[in-house]
């Protein structure tokens, strides 16, 4: 019976997700660590997209990335180079990498390296730049490039040394803790950032860097609540990758968006993307901005929801409703609703307000189609024009078409193989 084969494959996919043990092992350089990187490779968030079809913030981040790499000296040169065909654009996900918002990763950028100790696979993510005018939101002014230079030349080497002194950090345990402390690991990372600093600070003090540099680094980490996002994301990425490629499984192991398209990947359908136009996020806007300013949904950060935290754990982060809109009960309802479309529950990542029930884990395309319930994603909103930055935060879901097309392809595959 095909139903039995699917059920068994989905249990296996869930087990692989639950078995995952993401551990922060080191800080490195993208060009040295990420497989397939070259000096003219630019990775971006979401499914593959050409320069011509890229959204405003993603184009802005590419321009900034080319200036940062000294491959272009200004916007005009960067645009010409990006359009010339000399640059290889590729999805972060094709390189075990994830990037928030525009998700642009270039050769010289420092990266966190996270290993899934259970399966021996790795995931990579750049350092979070903070809020305001930042590359991930498509900004590329001197201020942005100077900060990236400082991150490469001071922040990363200092943290690298501190981590060597401190030793590896178990992110599974840390994520389990932050869910008990008011974070959901996507849009609220205040507890995670605090715990990370608590782990790193004694080692930072022991590095050979100057007092000024140590103070500067600690202030930078402390001044940005989303420092931990760039660790929760690769933790989720390396947890999810082993759940891919399981024959007969209807579990989603990648969800991602580039500001133009939303894309998902389904375990039993291998590396194939199922895409549809990204939607506009429903949420609250910062003063002076409206829905008209918003870019469609963007970033790899919904790998957190794919793994079962973020919006799926929104009931852990009740204060976030003041940031994304809605009431406390809405946060609880979102988390509860996700059990309708998932294979099981996590036994490490738990929701206190639901009597420590494990977060809903293992999105099943069959259940999404059957119930009409789409995964809930808790996310930031970028301005549609390059260089402006974040304009709000809110909630969004993948387009249903991604799941419909995936289901159709899944059935077609089985028919072609004589299974149906």
């Amino acid at each position, binding site marked *: 019976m*095909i*139903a039995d084969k*699917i059920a068994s494959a989905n249990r296996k996919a869930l087990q692989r997700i639950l078995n995952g043990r993401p551990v922060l092992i080191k800080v490195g350089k993208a060009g040295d660590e990420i497989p397939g990187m070259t000096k003219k490779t630019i990775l971006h968030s979401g499914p593959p997209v050409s320069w011509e079809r890229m959204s405003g913030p993603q184009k802005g981040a590419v321009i900034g990335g080319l200036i940062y790499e000294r491959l272009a000296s200004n916007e005009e040169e960067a645009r010409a180079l990006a359009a010339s065909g000399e640059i290889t654009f590729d999805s972060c996900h094709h390189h075990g990498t994830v990037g928030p918002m525009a998700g642009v990763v270039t050769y010289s950028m420092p990266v966190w390296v996270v290993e899934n100790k259970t399966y021996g696979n790795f995931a990579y993510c750049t350092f979070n730049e903070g809020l305001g005018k930042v590359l991930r939101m498509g900004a590329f002014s001197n201020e942005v490039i100077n900060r990236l230079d400082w991150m490469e030349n001071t922040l990363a080497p200092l943290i690298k040394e501190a981590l060597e002194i401190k030793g590896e950090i178990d992110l599974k345990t840390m994520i389990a803790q932050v869910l008990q402390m008011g974070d959901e690991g996507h849009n609220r990372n205040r507890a995670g950032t605090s715990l990370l600093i608590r782990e790193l600070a004694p080692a930072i003090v022991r590095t050979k860097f100057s007092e000024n540099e140590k103070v500067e680094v600690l202030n930078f980490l402390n001044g940005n609540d989303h420092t931990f996002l760039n660790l929760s994301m690769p933790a989720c990425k390396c947890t999810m990758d082993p759940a891919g490629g399981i024959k007969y499984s209807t579990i989603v192991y990648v969800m991602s968006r580039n500001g133009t398209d939303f894309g998902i990947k389904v375990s039993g359908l291998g590396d194939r993307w199922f895409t549809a136009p990204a939607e506009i996020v429903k949420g609250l806007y910062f003063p002076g901005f409206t829905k008209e300013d918003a870019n469609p949904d963007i970033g790899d950060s919904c790998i957190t929801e794919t793994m079962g935290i973020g919006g799926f754990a929104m009931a852990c982060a009740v204060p976030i409703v003041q940031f994304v809109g809605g009431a406390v009960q809405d946060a609880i309802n979102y988390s509860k609703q996700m059990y309708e479309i998932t294979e099981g529950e996590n036994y490490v990542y738990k929701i206190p307000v639901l009597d420590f029930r494990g977060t809903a884990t293992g999105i099943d395309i069959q259940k999404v*189609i*059957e119930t*009409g319930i789409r995964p809930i994603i808790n996310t930031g909103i970028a301005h549609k024009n390059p260089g402006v930055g974040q304009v709000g935060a809110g909630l969004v879901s993948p387009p249903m078409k991604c799941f419909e097309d995936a289901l*159709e392809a899944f*059935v077609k595959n089985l028919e072609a193989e004589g299974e*149906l």
Partner: protein
Amino acid sequence: MNKVNELFNKELKIINMGIESFYTDLKEQKVKVIHVDWRPVAGGNKKLSSLLSKLK
């Protein structure tokens, strides 16, 4: 007396499935009612329902 009329002489305990406005109308009239959040499979889309049934 007709059985249906008998029913309406008692306190009604109503479960509403489907269109939510029936539930809200009754609630406004202070009738005890609960609403079941029910939707047809795949929102009633025949093509998708058929694809799903092939996997059952």
